């Protein structure tokens, strides 16, 4: 019987390297033929490639895991869905159905939350840029506004004058929690006394009433104790304000920054080993709350989780459209999705699964996107088996930030679908076509081409 064909491969034998499992196809190769019970083939045939796929089941499960972990440890907790991580209405609606309020950082996001039916008093309005009209709208609608800087205090005082009312506000603070880099760009600094100066200013004018404190210590925080330090410092400051100015801090919003099971570039261990569980964060946070709050005082705890909830619910299916051998010996695959769709590929190494079993030896390969740009590399080095044109890769987790930060650049943005809990598949964002790009472009009459005229 004739032997089965495999793409020819030659590999140099490396001795003394950490490669016990490195080149074995059986340990490193991952096959995925379906997402939530829907075949990859079926998804691509119906909706095209590349294709973003979100799992409603995963989203709901993740939210519930976070909510249960925190609510069983502290009785007064609520979650603000971080719109900037993913503001597709279907994704937001699922999380709002689960009980999350909205956390927005711009007027556009504020209006988006309102447009899908979230009332103003269920919106946390953060961010360094809230223009005067956005502030006025948010005040009128009862949103929780967390002040970012002194200029916003002045603007809100103007709004208070205009509306002839005192406005309840929160204030974002920043501080040293022992992690690097320290996020000091947003909010007012606690350690230097800047935050207290801001409170004094509010009190002296009597137009704004501070009723909440907000902080966000960073992103992809791998140290649960950093949150414990954050809470200790916030509560200490809160009590100081309450005693000095007879105000009541009704809520502590400790932000987000919880990691997903994604592999940060430069880390050696796998996410399953690296990433603390949600319970470790909840335990650290609730312990710090009870250690620092006075008996009987149970202010509202807000968390602004984004990445940790949506990242693992998102997949990108991409197809291999070509391959070549680079002069340095590596194999290069060209996929139909690149950095235009995968903004987070600059920082994270995705889990790569193949839609079929591929025979043959693994070899070092890179994956390039379809853009005619040298930077379009979505995987800089991975052991992959010799794949045919048309093979599909399933990249994950890609649910956070990619469908908000993606670019319309060279290629159109593809369909985004949601697999429901009963395996129903719905388009939640349609693939773009040329009309989406040209719709807002204007060509002055004098520049119109008339190539048929003599």
């Amino acid at each position: 019987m004739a032997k089965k064909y495999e793409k020819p491969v030659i590999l140099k034998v490396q001795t003394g390297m950490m490669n016990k499992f490195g080149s074995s196809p059986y340990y490193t190769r991952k096959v995925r033929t379906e997402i939530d019970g829907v075949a990859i083939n079926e998804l691509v045939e119906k909706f095209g490639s590349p294709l973003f796929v979100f799992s409603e089941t995963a989203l709901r499960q993740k939210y519930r895991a976070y909510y249960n972990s925190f609510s069983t440890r502290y009785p007064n907790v609520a979650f603000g869905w971080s719109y900037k991580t993913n503001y597709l209405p279907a994704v937001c609606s699922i999380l709002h159905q689960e009980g999350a309020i909205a956390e927005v950082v711009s007027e556009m996001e504020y209006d988006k939350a309102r447009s899908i039916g979230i009332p103003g008093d269920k919106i946390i309005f953060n961010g360094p840029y809230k223009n005067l009209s956005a502030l006025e709208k948010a005040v009128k609608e009862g949103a929780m506004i967390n002040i970012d800087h002194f200029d916003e205090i002045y603007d809100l005082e103007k709004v208070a004058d205009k509306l002839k009312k005192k406005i309840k506000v929160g204030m974002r603070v920043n501080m040293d929690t022992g992690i690097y880099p320290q996020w000091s760009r947003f909010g007012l600094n606690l350690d230097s006394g800047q935050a207290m100066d801001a409170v004094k200013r509010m009190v002296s004018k009597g137009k704004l009433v501070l009723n909440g404190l907000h902080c966000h210590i960073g992103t992809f925080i791998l140290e649960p104790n950093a949150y414990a330090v954050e809470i200790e410092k916030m509560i200490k400051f809160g009590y100081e304000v309450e005693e000095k100015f007879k105000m009541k801090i009704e809520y502590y919003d400790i932000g987000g920054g919880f990691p997903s099971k994604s592999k940060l570039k430069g880390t050696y261990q796998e996410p399953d080993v690296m990433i603390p569980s949600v319970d470790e964060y909840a335990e650290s946070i609730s312990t710090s709350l009870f250690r620092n709050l006075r008996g009987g005082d149970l202010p509202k705890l807000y968390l602004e989780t984004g990445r940790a909830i949506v990242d693992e619910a998102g997949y990108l299916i991409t197809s291999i459209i070509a391959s070549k051998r680079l002069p340095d010996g590596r194999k290069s695959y060209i996929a139909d999705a690149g950095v235009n769709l995968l903004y987070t590929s600059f920082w994270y190494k995705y889990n790569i699964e193949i839609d079929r079993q591929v025979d043959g030896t693994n070899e070092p390969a890179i994956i390039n996107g379809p853009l005619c740009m040298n930077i379009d590399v979505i995987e800089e080095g991975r052991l992959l088996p010799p794949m045919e044109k048309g093979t599909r890769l399933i990249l994950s987790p890609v649910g956070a930030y990619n469908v908000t930060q993606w670019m319309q650049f060279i290629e159109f943005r593809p369909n985004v679908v949601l697999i429901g809990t009963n395996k129903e598949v719905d388009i939640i964002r349609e693939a773009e076509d040329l009309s989406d790009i040209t719709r807002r472009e204007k060509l002055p009459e004098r520049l119109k081409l008339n190539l048929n005229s003599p």
Partner: protein
Amino acid sequence: MNRLSKLAVNSEGFIFDPTTGDSYTVNPTGLFIINSLRDGKEIDQIAEELSKEFEDTPEEISKDISEFVSHLYTYNLY
């Protein structure tokens, strides 16, 4: 080509380059191509023989061979 003729190639696909001391492994199709190149055959002829020797060979087999040869080149074996 001269380099290829100096390699020690065993029947299981283990290759030793006595000039540099480097070792390589190839899969059965790779081994077939190396042996054919050592016999002085051209890519077209190798492609034809390869499709007789192996089942389910793809249409773009010449591309696979050419890519394999360029990989040999990057290892200074061709």
